[in-house]
Protein backbone atom coordinates (compact mmCIF):
# COMPACT_ATOMS: atom_id res chain seq x y z
CA UNK A 1 0.00 0.00 0.00
CA UNK A 2 1.38 3.36 -1.01
CA UNK A 3 1.61 5.91 1.78
CA UNK A 4 0.80 9.44 0.78
CA UNK A 5 3.47 11.95 1.71
CA UNK A 6 2.10 15.21 3.05
CA UNK A 7 3.43 18.39 4.60
CA UNK A 8 1.29 17.75 7.68
CA UNK A 9 4.13 16.56 10.02
CA UNK A 10 6.17 19.69 9.24
CA UNK A 11 3.27 22.08 9.93
CA UNK A 12 2.30 20.13 13.03
CA UNK A 13 5.88 20.23 14.32
CA UNK A 14 6.05 24.01 13.82
CA UNK A 15 2.58 24.39 15.41
CA UNK A 16 3.70 22.42 18.43
CA UNK A 17 7.03 24.25 18.84
CA UNK A 18 5.18 27.56 18.48
CA UNK A 19 2.67 26.49 21.11
CA UNK A 20 5.47 25.79 23.60
CA UNK A 21 7.23 29.11 22.89
CA UNK A 22 3.94 31.04 23.15
CA UNK A 23 2.93 29.27 26.37
CA UNK A 24 6.20 29.83 28.21
CA UNK A 25 7.43 33.17 26.85
CA UNK A 26 4.66 35.36 25.43
CA UNK A 27 2.84 36.43 28.67
CA UNK A 28 5.95 38.00 30.27
CA UNK A 29 6.74 39.82 27.01
CA UNK A 30 3.19 41.24 26.85
CA UNK A 31 3.64 42.47 30.44
CA UNK A 32 7.01 44.09 29.60
CA UNK A 33 6.15 45.60 26.20
CA UNK A 34 2.46 46.34 26.77
CA UNK A 35 2.48 47.53 30.38
CA UNK A 36 5.87 47.90 32.12
CA UNK A 37 7.50 50.21 29.55
CA UNK A 38 4.47 52.28 28.37
CA UNK A 39 3.25 52.84 31.94
CA UNK A 40 6.73 53.86 33.10
CA UNK A 41 7.36 51.01 35.58
CA UNK A 42 10.74 50.66 33.84
CA UNK A 43 12.55 52.40 30.99
CA UNK A 44 13.70 50.93 27.69
CA UNK A 45 15.86 52.58 25.05
CA UNK A 46 15.85 49.51 22.84
CA UNK A 47 19.61 49.02 23.33
CA UNK A 48 19.21 45.36 24.27
CA UNK A 49 17.68 44.54 20.88
CA UNK A 50 21.04 45.24 19.21
CA UNK A 51 22.70 42.28 21.00
CA UNK A 52 23.10 39.38 18.54
CA UNK A 53 21.81 36.59 20.78
CA UNK A 54 18.84 38.70 21.83
CA UNK A 55 18.01 39.00 18.11
CA UNK A 56 18.26 35.24 17.73
CA UNK A 57 15.96 34.82 20.74
CA UNK A 58 13.46 37.32 19.29
CA UNK A 59 13.48 35.45 16.00
CA UNK A 60 12.38 32.26 17.78
CA UNK A 61 9.94 34.18 20.01
CA UNK A 62 8.19 35.87 17.07
CA UNK A 63 8.40 33.34 14.23
CA UNK A 64 7.40 30.04 15.87
CA UNK A 65 4.09 31.34 17.34
CA UNK A 66 3.23 32.65 13.83
CA UNK A 67 3.24 29.02 12.60
CA UNK A 68 1.24 28.08 15.69
CA UNK A 69 -1.34 30.74 14.67
CA UNK A 70 -1.33 29.60 11.02
CA UNK A 71 -2.12 25.97 11.90
CA UNK A 72 -4.78 26.76 14.52
CA UNK A 73 -6.47 29.54 12.55
CA UNK A 74 -6.57 27.45 9.37
CA UNK A 75 -8.46 24.65 11.14
CA UNK A 76 -10.66 27.13 13.05
CA UNK A 77 -11.80 28.79 9.81
CA UNK A 78 -12.49 25.37 8.31
CA UNK A 79 -14.54 24.46 11.39
CA UNK A 80 -16.50 27.70 11.06
CA UNK A 81 -17.87 26.63 7.72
CA UNK A 82 -15.24 27.84 5.25
CA UNK A 83 -14.22 24.36 4.11
CA UNK A 84 -15.16 25.21 0.53
CA UNK A 85 -12.24 27.68 0.29
CA UNK A 86 -9.81 25.66 2.40
CA UNK A 87 -7.05 25.76 -0.27
CA UNK A 88 -7.14 29.56 -0.28
CA UNK A 89 -7.14 29.61 3.54
CA UNK A 90 -4.08 27.34 3.61
CA UNK A 91 -2.20 29.71 1.31
CA UNK A 92 -3.20 32.76 3.39
CA UNK A 93 -2.43 31.18 6.79
CA UNK A 94 0.76 29.21 6.11
CA UNK A 95 1.85 31.76 3.47
CA UNK A 96 1.34 34.52 6.03
CA UNK A 97 3.59 32.72 8.51
CA UNK A 98 6.29 32.21 5.85
CA UNK A 99 6.17 35.90 4.85
CA UNK A 100 6.29 36.76 8.59
CA UNK A 101 9.46 34.68 8.95
CA UNK A 102 11.28 36.67 6.26
CA UNK A 103 9.97 40.04 7.48
CA UNK A 104 11.09 39.23 11.05
CA UNK A 105 14.57 38.18 9.88
CA UNK A 106 14.85 41.34 7.75
CA UNK A 107 13.82 43.69 10.58
CA UNK A 108 16.09 42.00 13.15
CA UNK A 109 19.07 42.20 10.77
CA UNK A 110 18.36 45.89 10.13
CA UNK A 111 18.40 46.89 13.82
Amino acid at each position, binding site marked *: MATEKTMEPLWWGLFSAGGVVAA*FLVPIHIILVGFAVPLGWT*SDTGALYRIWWVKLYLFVLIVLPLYHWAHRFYFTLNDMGLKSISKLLAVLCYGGAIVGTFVTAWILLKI
Partner: protein
Amino acid sequence: MSAVGPDPAKLYHRKTPATWWLTNRSYFLFMLRELSSVFIALFLVVYLCQLYQLSKAPDAYNAFTQKLNSPGWIFFHLVALLFALYHSFTWFQSSAVVLPLRIGERLISRPIVTALHVGAWAVVSVIVLILFLALKS
Protein backbone atom coordinates in the same frame (compact mmCIF):
# COMPACT_ATOMS: atom_id res chain seq x y z
CA MET B 1 -4.49 1.19 -3.63
CA SER B 2 -7.73 2.82 -4.72
CA ALA B 3 -10.41 3.53 -2.14
CA VAL B 4 -13.29 1.10 -1.98
CA GLY B 5 -16.61 2.42 -0.77
CA PRO B 6 -19.55 4.57 -1.66
CA ASP B 7 -19.20 7.63 -3.86
CA PRO B 8 -18.43 10.49 -1.41
CA ALA B 9 -20.67 12.84 -3.38
CA LYS B 10 -23.66 10.62 -2.66
CA LEU B 11 -23.07 10.42 1.10
CA TYR B 12 -25.32 12.29 3.49
CA HIS B 13 -23.63 15.24 5.17
CA ARG B 14 -25.41 16.88 8.06
CA LYS B 15 -25.10 20.65 7.66
CA THR B 16 -23.35 22.31 10.62
CA PRO B 17 -24.29 25.93 11.22
CA ALA B 18 -21.36 28.37 11.52
CA THR B 19 -22.46 29.16 15.08
CA TRP B 20 -22.16 25.56 16.36
CA TRP B 21 -19.53 26.65 18.89
CA LEU B 22 -22.05 28.93 20.66
CA THR B 23 -24.36 26.06 21.54
CA ASN B 24 -22.29 24.51 24.32
CA ARG B 25 -19.89 25.80 27.00
CA SER B 26 -17.05 23.41 26.11
CA TYR B 27 -17.35 24.22 22.40
CA PHE B 28 -17.16 27.91 23.31
CA LEU B 29 -14.05 27.39 25.47
CA PHE B 30 -12.52 25.35 22.64
CA MET B 31 -13.09 28.27 20.27
CA LEU B 32 -11.60 30.76 22.77
CA ARG B 33 -8.52 28.53 22.99
CA GLU B 34 -8.21 28.45 19.21
CA LEU B 35 -8.67 32.23 19.00
CA SER B 36 -5.91 32.81 21.58
CA SER B 37 -3.40 32.19 18.78
CA VAL B 38 -4.83 35.18 16.86
CA PHE B 39 -4.26 37.58 19.77
CA ILE B 40 -0.78 36.18 20.42
CA ALA B 41 0.10 36.70 16.74
CA LEU B 42 -1.37 40.24 16.76
CA PHE B 43 0.75 41.12 19.80
CA LEU B 44 3.87 39.79 18.07
CA VAL B 45 3.12 41.82 14.92
CA VAL B 46 2.78 45.00 17.01
CA TYR B 47 6.04 44.10 18.80
CA LEU B 48 7.68 43.65 15.40
CA CYS B 49 6.44 47.10 14.31
CA GLN B 50 8.00 48.53 17.47
CA LEU B 51 11.33 46.82 16.69
CA TYR B 52 11.16 48.18 13.14
CA GLN B 53 11.15 51.74 14.59
CA LEU B 54 14.58 50.97 16.11
CA SER B 55 16.02 50.44 12.65
CA LYS B 56 14.87 53.96 11.71
CA ALA B 57 15.90 56.14 14.66
CA PRO B 58 15.94 56.01 18.48
CA ASP B 59 13.40 58.87 18.51
CA ALA B 60 10.97 56.84 16.42
CA TYR B 61 11.29 53.96 18.90
CA ASN B 62 10.63 56.24 21.88
CA ALA B 63 7.64 57.81 20.13
CA PHE B 64 6.20 54.34 19.48
CA THR B 65 6.55 53.21 23.11
CA GLN B 66 4.93 56.50 24.19
CA LYS B 67 1.99 55.78 21.90
CA LEU B 68 1.44 52.40 23.60
CA ASN B 69 0.52 54.39 26.73
CA SER B 70 -2.94 55.23 25.30
CA PRO B 71 -6.02 53.53 26.85
CA GLY B 72 -6.76 51.76 23.54
CA TRP B 73 -3.34 50.06 23.42
CA ILE B 74 -3.43 49.22 27.14
CA PHE B 75 -6.82 47.58 26.55
CA PHE B 76 -5.46 45.67 23.55
CA HIS B 77 -2.51 44.38 25.59
CA LEU B 78 -4.83 43.43 28.46
CA VAL B 79 -6.99 41.34 26.11
CA ALA B 80 -3.87 39.82 24.51
CA LEU B 81 -2.45 38.98 27.96
CA LEU B 82 -5.66 37.23 29.06
CA PHE B 83 -5.73 35.17 25.86
CA ALA B 84 -2.00 34.39 26.17
CA LEU B 85 -2.47 33.19 29.76
CA TYR B 86 -5.44 31.06 28.65
CA HIS B 87 -3.26 29.55 25.93
CA SER B 88 -0.46 28.84 28.46
CA PHE B 89 -2.80 27.13 30.90
CA THR B 90 -4.63 25.01 28.30
CA TRP B 91 -1.29 24.13 26.66
CA PHE B 92 0.13 22.92 29.99
CA GLN B 93 -3.06 20.93 30.61
CA SER B 94 -2.80 19.17 27.26
CA SER B 95 0.96 18.65 27.71
CA ALA B 96 0.12 16.68 30.85
CA VAL B 97 -2.02 14.38 28.69
CA VAL B 98 0.41 14.12 25.75
CA LEU B 99 3.57 13.73 27.83
CA PRO B 100 2.69 11.68 30.93
CA LEU B 101 5.34 11.85 33.63
CA ARG B 102 6.52 8.78 35.51
CA ILE B 103 8.69 8.32 38.57
CA GLY B 104 9.76 4.69 38.45
CA GLU B 105 6.54 2.71 37.99
CA ARG B 106 4.29 5.42 39.33
CA LEU B 107 2.39 7.67 36.96
CA ILE B 108 2.22 11.27 38.18
CA SER B 109 -1.34 12.61 38.16
CA ARG B 110 -2.25 15.12 35.46
CA PRO B 111 -3.02 18.10 37.76
CA ILE B 112 0.48 17.72 39.28
CA VAL B 113 2.13 17.62 35.83
CA THR B 114 0.15 20.76 34.87
CA ALA B 115 1.24 22.43 38.13
CA LEU B 116 4.90 21.55 37.37
CA HIS B 117 4.51 23.24 33.96
CA VAL B 118 3.03 26.33 35.62
CA GLY B 119 5.99 26.37 38.01
CA ALA B 120 8.45 26.11 35.12
CA TRP B 121 6.56 28.92 33.34
CA ALA B 122 6.92 31.15 36.43
CA VAL B 123 10.69 30.45 36.62
CA VAL B 124 11.16 31.16 32.87
CA SER B 125 9.15 34.40 33.19
CA VAL B 126 11.29 35.61 36.09
CA ILE B 127 14.49 34.79 34.12
CA VAL B 128 13.22 36.82 31.11
CA LEU B 129 12.32 39.68 33.45
CA ILE B 130 15.77 39.67 35.09
CA LEU B 131 17.56 39.53 31.71
CA PHE B 132 15.41 42.40 30.40
CA LEU B 133 16.21 44.57 33.42
CA ALA B 134 19.91 43.68 33.26
CA LEU B 135 20.33 44.32 29.52
CA LYS B 136 17.99 47.26 28.89
CA SER B 137 20.59 49.98 29.50
